[in-house]
């Protein structure tokens, strides 16, 4: 059973993948809620364009998304050079860039899930809250937000799962550097490209399945708890 023991390099890839996916999920959450609110409630010119842009990573080939990221967020790209000069944040060929690529790829799934739950919120409850003295921000924080928690959890898990599996955009944008940008998927790919890498690929595949199942089960439990709290007659 020696072939089941994970090497240090493999552990590094697993830890990196978990970190990249978690950061991608958490950082995109506030943006996801904001964009979902905008799309669910906003009435403005160009809404279908915003909607299209959000969904673009879902239909574009991941390599195209990765290449666009490289052009925009690379060290010589307009946004990349600005970020480096102002806050010293370098994205290209760093794990932070991998997190950005994963966040972008998972964003449409997250927004979709949250948007559906916002549209299911009974606006009459928000009206009732406003007649009780709650201003728009308080109505959002005390009524809307708690009621969309099940949708937000589902969106977070989808985003996390997408990030765990992301390959094309990540490898195009930040390459496949062991210890810095080599995520689980990239490591499995690397194993398949070298002679005798089958055992390593198998080990990481099992790890990958375990993490995905665990994420799914945690989301079921959390969503069930949240749904019980907000269920209606």
């Amino acid at each position, binding site marked *: 059973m020696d072939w089941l023991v994970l090497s240090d390099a493999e552990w590094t890839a697993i830890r990196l993948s978990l970190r990249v996916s978690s950061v991608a999920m958490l950082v995109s959450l506030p943006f996801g809620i904001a964009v979902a609110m905008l799309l669910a409630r906003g009435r403005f010119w160009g809404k279908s364009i915003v909607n299209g842009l959000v969904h673009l990573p879902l239909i574009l080939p991941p390599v195209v998304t990765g290449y666009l990221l490289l052009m925009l967020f690379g060290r010589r790209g307009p946004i990349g050079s600005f970020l480096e000069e102002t806050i010293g944040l370098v994205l290209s060929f760093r794990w932070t860039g991998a997190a950005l690529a994963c966040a972008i790829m998972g964003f449409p799934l997250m927004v979709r899930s949250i948007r559906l739950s916002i549209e299911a919120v009974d606006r009459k409850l928000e009206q009732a809250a406003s*007649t009780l*003295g709650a201003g728009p921000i308080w109505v959002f924080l005390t009524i809307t937000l708690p009621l969309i928690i099940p949708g937000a959890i589902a969106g977070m898990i989808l985003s996390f799962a997408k990030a765990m599996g992301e390959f094309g955009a990540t490898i195009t944008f930040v390459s496949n550097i062991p210890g810095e940008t080599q995520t689980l998927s990239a490591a499995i790919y690397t194993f398949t490209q070298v002679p005798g890498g089958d055992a390593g690929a198998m080990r990481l595949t099992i790890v990958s399945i375990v993490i995905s199942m665990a994420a799914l089960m945690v989301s079921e439990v959390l969503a069930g708890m949240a749904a019980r709290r907000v269920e*209606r007659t």
Partner: protein
Amino acid sequence: MTLEVQTTHRLGGFSLDAAFSSDRGVTALFGKSGSGKTTLINIIAGLLSPDSGRIVLDGDIIMDSGNRSFTPPHQRRFGSVFQEARLFPHLSVRHNLTYGRWFAPANQTGQDFDRIVDLLGIEALLERAPTNLSGGEKQRIAIGRALLSSPRLLLMDEPLAALDEARKAEILPYLERLRDETDIPIVYVSHSVAEVTRLANRVVALEDGRVSASGDAATVLSLSALTSMIGRREAGCVIEANIEPDAGDDPRLTVIRAGETLFRVPKVSLPAGHAIRLHIAARDVLLAISAPQGLSALNIFEGRILEIGAEAQGAIDVRVDCGGNTIVSRVTAHSAERLALQAGMPIHVVIKSVALEQ
């Protein structure tokens, strides 16, 4: 407390053009569905911004389209109770009740929590989730929640309409206590004559977005012009009366005085002098040109015909003055001709049943 409302609003093919004012007590906005009651109360609450209008509460301008001022709903402090309770499903009953407190001005300690909980009889429900409560319980909590936000005005939009008769009977006494024990003026939307008769001090009758009558409840509800609105079955007169201290010769009856007229009704356990409203449906009143003999009816009065209404569906409403009270009787056009009824003619009125609204 004086509320003045004047507004016009157009919504598709419907136009609302209404003005009324109210002071302490319950003002009922009364009319059929589609008459604009809910639109009007939503405008007062600030949930709907009208095309034009002006709302003033005690000299405080809440909104005025003339100078483009508009106070958003959360700054109006007008507690609202809607047709459906709209309780927050993620909060316990206690937290639903205290929700408005977070936003009430600090110097406004507002209504005492325990007193309101006691008034509405919801003590046992405080720690429950709103999901599994009955419709009547939910509506009582919604009323408590509005009261505890220390409102300057209470708006109620058909709060009983979604409930069955038993649940209505459960809540009406609480609404009466609310009217009698708090100083908050209430605007109450309803299409039910029974509710309005029982609760309202003043009535504003709405018809097709226009105010067709307004004023003292008993007067407005008796107006023959309202017959078409009230529905022919319920139309009649409403008389303000008091329980007479002298119970008369039969202990199974209660005597009620309205002006010079004494009504006898089956025993009710109310103290002498208690104010009460009598609702007498026109279809329950018979007319006789000579004193009738050997009838089972308890209440037979002599009066004089004031007015003979126009014929509608073969029936005529006859308004009779009995000792200062106007009683309406509905007779067939045929009977009116046979008896040769005319204004000024002396007549006997036979009342089959009297509904008491406390």
